[in-house]
């Protein structure tokens, strides 16, 4: 069985959520085990920006009921560093990471990018267009608009304008990673589709925060070095299911559903409300091989 997604051929329906699996670091840690057991049917890079970013000061993590707040701050080497250092390593790893010894094939690479405006995004897409190692581009629109402070993807009209302005810069499939911090995610998805997106993915993390536990210091400090962060994991699963359902009912392009997936049952729920693929994020932290387990369980659910 193979799955078609935006013209790519995938071995199964489970991929990773951007920023939740660093394949280069994982290869250093797990080496051959990662190569032979590569769990994702496509690999999504963490978000790449034009300029390098160091990310937020620590602490960057807070454990919440059934979830995790992260305030990582999108550390990355910048576009040039990514293309120069990471892309060859990823291409090498993904080149023969798809499946058991006999039928190994390349795992498609989806590069996730973020820019503050159409100008920046255009430059990112153009650079991706040049590189054969990249199979598709995911556009993270959870980037705060400099003027409003809101995510540029939170307003359907703004989102439509941005996607329309950048759409022509690459012929590769363009996935728009929606923000869940909005009143009407289905309207945003529809706007992305109308502007030419080939797929949408959701949900990204829910805006959340925590205070430092020591109650003695006043005024109390936020725990996270970055101030606020985003909630992921089981706690957001039922919110994700509602948003994916609403989006899938509104658009005709494929939907990548994610948010709190821990087992095939959760993946099945997302597929049953209309997702084509499912992404695993935070659960990979608990077990790096969880996505592989989920993909196998999903296949036996489908057969059984």
């Amino acid at each position, binding site marked *: 069985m193979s799955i078609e997604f935006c013209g790519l051929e995938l071995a199964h329906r489970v991929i990773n959520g951007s920023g939740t699996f660093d394949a280069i670091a994982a290869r250093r840690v797990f080496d*051959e085990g990662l190569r032979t057991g590569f769990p994702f049917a496509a690999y999504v890079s963490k978000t790449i920006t034009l300029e390098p970013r160091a990310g937020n000061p620590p602490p960057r993590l807070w454990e919440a*009921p059934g979830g995790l707040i992260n305030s990582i701050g999108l550390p990355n080497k910048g576009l040039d560093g990514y293309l120069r250092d990471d892309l060859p390593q990823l291409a090498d790893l993904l080149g023969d990471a798809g499946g058991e010894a006999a039928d190994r094939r390349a795992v498609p690479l989806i590069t996730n990018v973020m820019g503050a405006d159409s100008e920046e995004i255009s430059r990112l897409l153009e650079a991706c267009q040049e590189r054969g190692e990249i199979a598709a581009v995911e556009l993270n629109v959870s980037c705060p608009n400099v003027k409003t402070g809101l995510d540029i993807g939170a307003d359907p009209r703004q989102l439509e304008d941005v996607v329309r302005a950048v759409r022509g810069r690459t012929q590769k499939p363009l996935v728009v990673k929606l923000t869940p911090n909005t009143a009407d995610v289905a309207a945003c998805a529809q706007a992305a589709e109308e502007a030419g997106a080939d797929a949408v993915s959701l949900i990204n993390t829910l805006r959340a925060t925590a205070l430092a536990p020591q109650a003695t210091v006043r005024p109390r400090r936020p725990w996270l070095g970055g101030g606020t962060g985003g909630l992921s994991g089981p706690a957001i699963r039922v919110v994700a299911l509602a948003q994916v359902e609403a989006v899938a009912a509104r658009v005709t392009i494929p939907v990548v559903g994610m948010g709190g997936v821990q087992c095939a049952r959760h993946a099945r729920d997302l597929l049953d409300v209309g997702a084509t693929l499912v992404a695993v994020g935070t659960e990979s932290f*608990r077990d790096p091989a969880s996505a592989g387990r989920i993909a196998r369980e999903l296949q036996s659910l489908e057969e059984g």
Partner: protein
Amino acid sequence: MSEAPFARRALTVTGMEELGAYRVLRVADPDGAAPEPGQFAMLAAAERWGGGEDERPYLPRAFSIARHLDGESHFLLEDVGPGSRRLCELRAGEKLWSLGPLGQGFAAPPDGRRALLVGGGVGIAPLAILQDSLSAACTVLLGFRDAPRVAGAALLSGAQLATDDGSAGHHGLVTDLLEEEIRHDSHAVVYACGPAGMLEGVRAVCARAEVPAQLALEAGMACGFGACFGCVVPRRGGGYLRVCVDGPVIDAAVLEHVEEHAGAPA
């Protein structure tokens, strides 16, 4: 670096013994890779991981491998929150999830240089396996808060002690002992693990004396294998290091300071 299998594994608890304020958890791991001193594993109880204070724990917790003997890994636990509490409840025969061994361990001392092991509180754990691995004799300096914690010193042999409450050894900081040692032998190599304040003290003392120091840091971790970028500490000269893959053992020279959250529970 020892290579970890690519998946968490269900291992069986073989023992849980009290050691003063601490507990020593033993886990059967006959097929696991032999860890290097300073490496750690991400642990979670296989059953009921969650449902504690604030519905936590949810993520696995990092624990230094304190010893690896006869196909068993030993861990030193201090009950300071929902994760360590749940692990402390485990009994022989129960299962836990383990991912590892992970991270960069201690580098052996160059020939002829004396290893000076400095530990504080539950942070002494990785120094035990380090001592096991050293061929030459080493000096061990351990600091503890109080008498129930001093019991942890049994994990290493021949330790000189310092305590905050004066209940054993030097009444004061373990870094006082360190300064004293370095004054006599500035040719040593320091290996340290403990609370952030202690590690910062060790770093400063060693920097002044120009003694190389390897610090085993801690940080809140979600994954332990470089995936989340959550476990960072600032690197001297800018940017961040991931404690899980660039550490936990980090050369003191690449740090400006040891920050507030980068150590073991005080």
